């Protein structure tokens, strides 16, 4: 099962010409946010690169992340990068099932000991192992067993990276993120609901090209894609600075493409590449389509208040709490005044 061919050989076998390969390398450079001048280096690295073995585990998830990646039926350039890994286990995509599938997983682990990548989508329930099982194995057990000899783990999507929907308040299954369970090896978080497919392939491409994992931020996200906020790269930013805001989804401002801050845009506090990489082969991204950013690549984004509330909305106790504060202030004030009145009266009497 172990594929010893280099990527160059695999592509050649597929009848890809050198020009096609150069195109593929340009796309890889774009993906990795490397300048086009790096294309020759990428080409020589990719030519001799061996295809990494990948085991994909799906836990408490909606298959949206797999869908995001495999949306296209015919090979796209990014699809090719995905094709050039050796996907040895993915229970949604593979034909084998049951014991045969588990055997494939074990075989891949055995043959690529210490070198294979584990991709995970979905969060892991700790509440009751029975909440989510595969072939009778609980998610926790399967994760721990599979990562034991892996080179690295890539958490695909907000569920695997941060707990996502299953982990949202009140978190009935006790769902946790992968990096809460895997502590002794690199875990790359690729959050997003779903993550941008380009970002997933880029991380694979980097591993493929340079044999390295990307540089990560404090949430374990690749800086190349999560280094800047949506707001910092948003083409509507000039409207934000000019104070031109859409007030509703169908007013004049919305039609003129003004800033969506007042409609709840999370752009200023959300780190993701949507504004530049965009979605659907660079077609557009949510804000371009007129919808505020939901902050889907940030931890706990489901629990950060209403999606359509501006982010600076006061999220602290309103009316009754303040009423209590007024009453408390009044009580202290009255007591203080009464005390000084008594003191005053005493002074007058004595004086």
């Amino acid at each position, binding site marked *: 099962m172990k594929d010893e061919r280099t990527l160059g050989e695999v592509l050649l076998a597929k009848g890809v010409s050198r020009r096609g390969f150069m195109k593929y390398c340009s796309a890889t450079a774009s993906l990795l946010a490397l300048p086009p001048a790096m294309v020759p280096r990428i080409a020589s690295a990719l030519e001799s690169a061996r295809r990494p073995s990948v085991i994909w585990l799906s836990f408490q998830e909606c298959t949206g992340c797999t869908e995001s990646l495999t949306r296209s039926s015919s090979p796209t350039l990014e699809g090719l990068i995905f094709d050039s890994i050796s996907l040895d286990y993915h229970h949604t995509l593979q034909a084998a099932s049951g014991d045969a599938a588990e055997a494939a997983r074990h075989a891949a682990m055995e043959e690529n000991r210490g070198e294979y990548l584990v991709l995970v989508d979905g969060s892991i329930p700790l509440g009751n192992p029975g909440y989510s099982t595969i072939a009778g194995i609980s998610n926790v057990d399967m994760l721990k067993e599979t990562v034991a000899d892996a080179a690295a783990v890539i958490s695909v999507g907000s569920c695997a990276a941060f707990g996502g929907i299953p982990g949202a308040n009140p978190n009935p299954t006790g769902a946790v993120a992968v990096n809460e369970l895997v502590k002794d090896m690199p875990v790359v978080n690729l959050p997003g609901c779903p993550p941008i497919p380009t970002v997933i392939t880029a991380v694979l491409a980097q591993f493929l090209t340079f044999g390295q994992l990307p540089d990560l931020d404090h949430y374990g996200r690749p800086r190349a894609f999560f280094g800047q906020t949506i707001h910092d790269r948003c083409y509507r930013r000039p409207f934000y600075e000019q104070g031109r805001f859409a007030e509703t989804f169908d007013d004049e401002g919305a039609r003129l493409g003004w800033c969506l801050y007042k409609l709840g845009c999370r752009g200023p*506090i959300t780190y993701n590449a949507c504004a530049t990489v965009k979605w659907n082969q660079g077609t557009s991204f949510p804000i371009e389509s007129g919808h505020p950013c939901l902050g889907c690549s940030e931890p*706990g984004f489901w629990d950060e208040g209403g999606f359509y509330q501006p982010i600076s909305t006061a999220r*602290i106790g309103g009316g009754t*709490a303040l009423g209590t504060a007024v009453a408390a202030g009044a009580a202290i004030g009255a007591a203080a005044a009464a005390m000084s009145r008594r003191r005053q009266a005493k002074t007058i009497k004595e004086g």
Partner: protein
Amino acid sequence: MELLDFARGPALQFGLYAFVIGTVWRLLGILLLAAKPDHSAPRKRGGILAALKVISSRSVTAREFRQDTLYASVLGYVLHIGLFVIVFLFVPHILFFKGLIGLEWPGLPNNVIYFVGVITAGVGVALLLRRMTHPVLKLISNFDDYFSWVVTMAPIITGLIIPIRFGIRYETLLAIHILSIAVLLTWLPFGKLAHAFLVFFSRGTTGMVLERRGAKT
């Protein structure tokens, strides 16, 4: 986002309660005090009108002193007008108040706010320098004056840094901004910044007393 959550949640909540409790406390504590008995016969009847007169007349320096205090008065006005514009006419701020009290009003473009912010910060520094160098002011200033200056300036400075960034993450800067606001709110009713609400009562009282004595106000 943890620091931001703390700043937005417990810290700001604490600041707001301290502000409300403190303000009501200080106001009632003073208003409920017994007035000192004054046994003299009033020259004139010092009513509400007399109070209002001084509240407004003291907003302009008496002609005799105008020349000497012009610099400080102008700076003082710019500081306060700047603060007002920044706090109440910046759209993200307005949306904060909207969440709190349900009311919304039109704001100014952010660029204008940044400009006003820089001016206000500069004026704040000028006022501090004056306080530290003016022979009399220097003597009568205490910790309260300097601390009040710091907590007033902190939100302006931290707010201005948000759009500049200096390579620091937005959430971190925002969290610091909000923490500085929590400190300001907590301190405001208890130190000299309480003049924000007491100034009207002190002037009003002065007006009534002076009127009663028949002094020129």
